[in-house]
């Protein structure tokens, strides 16, 4: 909408009469006039022929085949998608998109990356009300990049060193991230925490205390407790062992993050009850006054620490 070519168009207007409400017009064909049927063409019986049930709006129900078993009842049910609406979903985010976001400065990699960071870019969105439980980091090519001529796998081209926290991932993505000296963690957020995490500003405007994050359900507990998935409930020692194992498996040299100058940032992790980095449950954040209020009542403190 803006370029130096607009100059010519605008200068054209200088020599034309003043634009006012009375000399405006829409583009040809923009508004379709509703020409209802009248008289011979389109009118009279309005496309329903002569008499009969069709002219008298006496129809059988859709799909009815005048008595024999209708098509939609001929075949037995197959519950391919039974309970699909109840299962947890993790909308995918490819490593290629992530790399692009980092390259275009949409994400600051000097700080840990979170679901809230990803949603704040505006390029990735989640709907907890649709049973979306977080981000699934995949190593495929993203739809975003399909227009490029050389399509390479997202994992092969991933070059950034990041500390990222996702909700679901696969082994090759973990390898891709750890190969560059980054850290990946999988953690679980319950629905309430998700709503808060996706739009922190909206939550802070509610004026409520940050709640505790809930523990995963039974069918997810093993995923988040296993070191192979870099779960947030897993033993850190086992995780470092798994890092070593993965490096062997995928054939790269495991970088030493202890020597990294960003070690503190890379190793920073959330507590299992924590929703935001640097903010504990029970705190009240006020964006208008730019203050953080912490509870002093021992009962409250004990509750938020539990």
């Amino acid at each position, binding site marked *: *909408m*803006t*370029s130096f070519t*607009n100059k010519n168009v605008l200068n054209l*207007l200088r020599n034309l009469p003043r634009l006012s409400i009375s000399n*405006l017009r829409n583009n040809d064909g923009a508004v379709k006039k509703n020409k209802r049927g009248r008289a011979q063409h389109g009118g009279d019986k309005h496309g329903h022929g002569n008499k009969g049930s069709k002219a008298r709006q006496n129809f059988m129900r859709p799909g009815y085949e005048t008595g024999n078993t209708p098509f939609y009842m001929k075949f037995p049910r197959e519950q391919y998608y039974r309970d699909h609406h109840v299962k947890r979903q993790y909308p995918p985010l490819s490593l290629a998109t992530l790399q692009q976001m980092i390259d275009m*400065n949409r994400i*600051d990699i000097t*700080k840990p990356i979170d679901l809230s960071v990803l949603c704040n870019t*505006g390029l990735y969105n989640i709907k907890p009300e649709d049973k979306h439980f977080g981000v699934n980091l995949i190593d495929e090519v993203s739809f975003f990049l399909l227009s490029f001529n050389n399509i390479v796998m997202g994992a092969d081209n991933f070059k950034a060193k990041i500390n990222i926290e996702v909700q679901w991932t696969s082994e090759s993505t973990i390898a891709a991230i750890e190969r560059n000296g980054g850290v990946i963690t999988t953690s679980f957020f319950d629905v309430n925490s998700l709503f808060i995490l996706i739009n922190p500003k909206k939550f802070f405007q509610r004026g409520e205390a940050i709640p505790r994050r809930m523990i995963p359900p039974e069918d997810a507990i093993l995923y988040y407790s296993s070191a192979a998935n870099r779960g947030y409930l897993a033993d850190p020692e086992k995780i470092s062992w798994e890092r070593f194992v993965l490096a062997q498996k995928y054939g790269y040299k495991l970088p030493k993050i202890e020597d990294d100058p960003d070690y503190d940032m890379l190793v920073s992790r959330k507590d299992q009850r924590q929703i935001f980095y640097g903010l504990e449950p029970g705190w009240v954040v006020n964006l208008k006054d730019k203050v953080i209020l912490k509870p002093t009542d021992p009962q409250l403190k004990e509750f938020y620490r539990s």
Partner: protein
Amino acid sequence: MLLNCLAKQIRALPSTFAAACRMSSVATENAEFTEVEEPPMVYGGYTNLRQAWVSNLDTVKENPSTIIDLHPQVFGSRPRIDIIHENIVWQRKYRYVSYANTKVTAEVNMSSKKPWPQKGQGRARHGTRRSPLFKGGSVIHGPRSHTTHFYMLPFYKRVYGLTSTLSVKLIQDDLHIVKNLDLPSDDPSYINDLVDSRLWGPSVLFIDDTDTMPRNISLALNQIKHMNLMPVYGLNVYSMLKYETLVLTVAAVKKIQERLLYQLHRPDVHQATKKFMLNMQN
């Protein structure tokens, strides 16, 4: 090289967008970029930068003092007449409620008795006097009261409507920028003289930053029907086209630019284009 160009462009955009993307990982060249209230409007050299004189309302005679840069995307955007037209139509229609009402057969104030027997009269057969065939009977498919015509024009059409109209106003010399709306007196004749001498067109719309206008101008324009005051948040395409001249204060210009550029470059487009809800708050 590409990244640096991008960085320069991003820095050139208003601070709201710069805040939206986290800048720290890009190598900054601090010498070029100085901490000014506004970043520079020009980027790349290929631009449609607009400029305008800033004059005053203190004296009847125009005293242009400075030149203000106007952002090309707000004041130099392509003048989309069709979008302006759609905005006008929308503004007219979305509030309109048609109260026209006609009676349906059941509502006609007549008895439902059969007027005359079916057979034997030699007259046409009728069941009720209320039928549309009769004079005084019901109306078929007539208007039914409280027909609303509410709809929301797509968000970006409304944004582009505003930018197009502002651009049109500026290029057709109907946009004037003043330092502020302070008048020396509250006499309407003063403002009349001012407007006449400056050839500002019969109707003028003054737009300021705040919704509480200075005393003098409010009292003066209170007696003039064809010149009105408006806060920035009341800016709309219909009013801009209705009034021949548009007078903005510098503060209003800054606010308009900031707001429109934010809407044009916001990262969370999906939020902007969500379904319209009446009680929506940002």
